[in-house]
């Protein structure tokens, strides 16, 4: 029983102050809304769960065999009113939380654009063995294991994978979405405060998975423009050959940028997943993990 209190205290401690990172410290509208839904659902349920735990412990303690004052009711096995109560309490709770879930799923649907006066930045995300490639199609540049975005601007992600399934997750900006070869998933996020936020693959993808992380640098708009200019002025070119090299399995790759990215690369990678297994017909190699 003290254990349960302790457990709750632990969760509360993390909720209130212990956490200066992660899901409970959102830095954008999506993550903030998701945290709010988490709190609302938690609150609704704790209102039922805490009394239930206390009642369980209380009943067990009071009706212990050694307590002579407790009334023994050996035939108390049915009560229509109580039955009514035990069915309706969980049903009402679920109605409430279900409503929260239904509305939240639609409001925060990952493919749904964020309502904003600012024009969104487009980023194409490709999970590779075992690193992340971010292509900025409008800027014509690309970056590996590093995502730079302007603050206060919606970011519109299109995501796919070069090989196995991964999950793109930046806890402080909002929920994750899977990346899958041959398919495109969509996600919209936004950072409201400048800062560096940790991102990672959430779905286990093999040997180099633990290092498959990146930093999201949320910077003011002018700094973002500067960063784009800097990136354009240096670094290698991302063409089909460079991509084929990049797609080879590697672990813990230090972040770097490409000064230009071939247009249509992302679609080429998505379409490669649809083609038959004939190496000569695949413009961009899926993965060379097996050849290792």
């Amino acid at each position, binding site marked *: 029983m003290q254990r349960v209190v302790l457990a709750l205290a632990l969760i509360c401690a993390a909720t209130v102050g212990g956490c200066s990172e992660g899901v409970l410290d959102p830095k954008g509208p999506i993550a903030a809304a998701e945290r709010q839904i988490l709190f609302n659902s938690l609150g609704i349920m704790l209102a039922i769960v805490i009394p239930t735990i206390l009642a369980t412990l209380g009943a067990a303690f009071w009706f212990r065999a050694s307590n002579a004052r407790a009334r023994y009711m050996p035939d108390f096995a049915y009560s229509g009113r109580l039955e009514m109560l035990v069915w309706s309490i969980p049903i009402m709770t679920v109605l409430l939380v279900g409503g*929260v879930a239904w509305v939240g799923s639609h409001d925060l*649907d990952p493919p749904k654009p964020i309502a904003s006066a600012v024009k969104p930045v487009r980023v194409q995300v490709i999970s590779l063995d075992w690193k992340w490639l971010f292509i900025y199609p409008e800027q014509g540049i690309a970056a590996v294991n590093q995502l730079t975005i302007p603050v206060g601007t919606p970011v519109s992600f299109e995501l796919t994978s070069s090989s196995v399934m991964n999950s793109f997750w930046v806890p402080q900006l909002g929920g994750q979405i899977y990346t899958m070869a041959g398919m495109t998933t969509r996600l919209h996020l936004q950072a409201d405060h400048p800062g560096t936020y940790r991102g990672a693959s959430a779905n286990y993808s093999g040997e180099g998975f633990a290092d498959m992380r990146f930093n999201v640098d949320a910077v003011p708009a002018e700094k973002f423009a500067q960063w784009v200019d800097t990136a354009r002025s240096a670094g290698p070119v991302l063409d089909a050959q460079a991509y084929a090299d990049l797609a080879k399995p590697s672990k813990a790759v230090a972040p770097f940028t490409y000064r230009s990215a071939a247009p249509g690369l992302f679609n080429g990678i998505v379409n490669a997943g649809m083609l038959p297994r004939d190496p000569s017909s695949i413009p961009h190699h899926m993965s060379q993990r097996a050849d290792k």
Partner: protein
Amino acid sequence: MNLLGNLTWSAIPFDQPIIMGASGGMILGIVFVLGWVTLKGYLPYLWREWITSVDHKRIGVMYLVLAMLMLLRGFSDAIMMRAQQAVAAGGAQGYLPPEHFDQIFSAHGTIMIFFVAMPLVIGLMNFAVPLQLGIRDMAFPTLNAVSLGLTASGILLINVSLFVGEFAKTGWVAYPPLSELQFSPGVGVDYYLWSLQISGLGTLLTGINFVTTILKTRAAGMSYMRMPVFCWTALASNLLIVAAFPVLTAAMAMLLLDRYLGFHFFSVDGGGNAMMYVNLFWVWGHPEVYILVLPAFGIYSEVSATFSGKPLFGYRSMVAATMAICVLAFTVWLHHFFTMGASASVNAFFGVASMMIAVPTGVKIFNWLFTMYGGRIRFTVPVLWTIGFMVTFVLGGLTGVLLAVPPVDWQVHNSVFLVAHFHHVIIPGVVFGAFAGYTYWFPKAFGFKLEESWGRRAFWCWFIGFHVAFMPMYVVGLMGMTRRLQHYDVLSWQPWLIVAAAGVAIIFAGVVCQIVQFVVSIRAREELRDVTGDPWNGRTLEWSTASPPPAWNYAVLPRVTGLDAFWTRKKLARVTQGESAPAREYEPIEVPKNSAIGFVNAFFAVVAGFALIWHIWWMVIFGAFGAFIAIVLFAFRNEEEVEIPAERIARFDHAHPAEVTL
């Protein structure tokens, strides 16, 4: 042509001290036990009374022995993972390289679900269900032995993978494309697939056996609404097995076709689609949770009623809730992948459907609460497990409903929060339940109770250790830690993971207490002996026969006139005290004959499975053909039953007066 397929000396990891140590220890242990058994001359006894037995009670006990051994294996994996994550922070890599760590978490999940939780509940159902139904055996006793053999084959194969070759490095769900040949070229995934295919067949046969037994062979007078709740939950659980396991078998068969014959069901190229596997896996995977947890709910119902000295509160509600869970279990699988990009309405639908399961589950919690209300609760070890379960499980259920809210799920899916959640429901929901059942039915199985004080110590260590181990994982999950990390860069996670490791150490102390309890109980069995057959003042039929029950269970088959059949009869006996009971008439009883088919079939299954994993095709043919021939020969045997003469039954009955006093 190579006679050994892909098998070479390089399959044995001589350069890995941890693996060599573990498998060496395991082999030594097996050799030691086998040698001891042989030298002591127990081998014929074991063969005659256990290995070839088709008695449901013996088979149940053997399932439990397998499960307990595998619990030790799966728990060792847990200790290694917690230790690794406690140290591998910042630049540190810990002591396990990724290729080893990845096998450990895959093996931990696979073993704990398939080879610990499943045999625990199937073992307890095997032992108790026919006794509670007031019958002499399962509908298909020999098939039951075959099921046990196939489960044991799967267990053997998965343990061989430790020494010969490797285990899957894909996680216990083995999602393609990662589990496809292209990305997992080794034998690890094949070990995973074949051990689960073979044991899965055994589980399916068990399901068929139980459904038939419960629907068709109950005692006279036992209508559906007079069945003990544990039998109801067993029925629901086995209906789920029959409906869900073929889906897993089919999904894995498709993955096997991809891996062995170049098909493209789930591959990244050739039009394959991995999302199909993910769907099929969880169409089995979510009902699987209820396959495990429903029988445990049944145990809690029996325990709370027995030790409160009251009938279960709201029996009809309990039955309705059980069957509601049984149906709803098939409507929620999509909540395992809200992050896969389904439309908002699909996500929302499955989210709300998942929450609806909380309704019948909540009803059950309240009904146990009202069962205790107005009772005279004896705080025995099974009651401790039950109350520990109730207060823990509601919180695990709470985080489960959180995960059913799609926007919350997007933020904590695949994180350590999720890991904390499912341990928070499965450990109290299944493991505590199995321990309660083990303590509750132990005197019925062996004729003496388990020692109490060590049982209490074990409970408190498990209960406290569980919270210390998993509560911090909720916190780190919310901090953004994903699961299955061999090392991590965020130093602020480390203190929480060290606490979690300490929790595992406390659970380990609980496991030690259980082993000590077992040994102490055997040594003190004379003091702990129960001669009445009814040590707990029970309510259901199994307590009306001798402990341990004879092969024929009941000398005279009981007639059931109401719910809580034995309790009713005891009350009646008190009223009619003094009147001499009518003399019993004994008739010869036919019991099913022992059969080696379970063992022989298991032998060939292991041979075929091992050969398939290593592509040793002549051996595959040998194994498959051998199993086929064995079954055909078995089908042609002339005698299926042996008759036990009436006088032997009478003699036993007079020596064990438990049943006669009624």
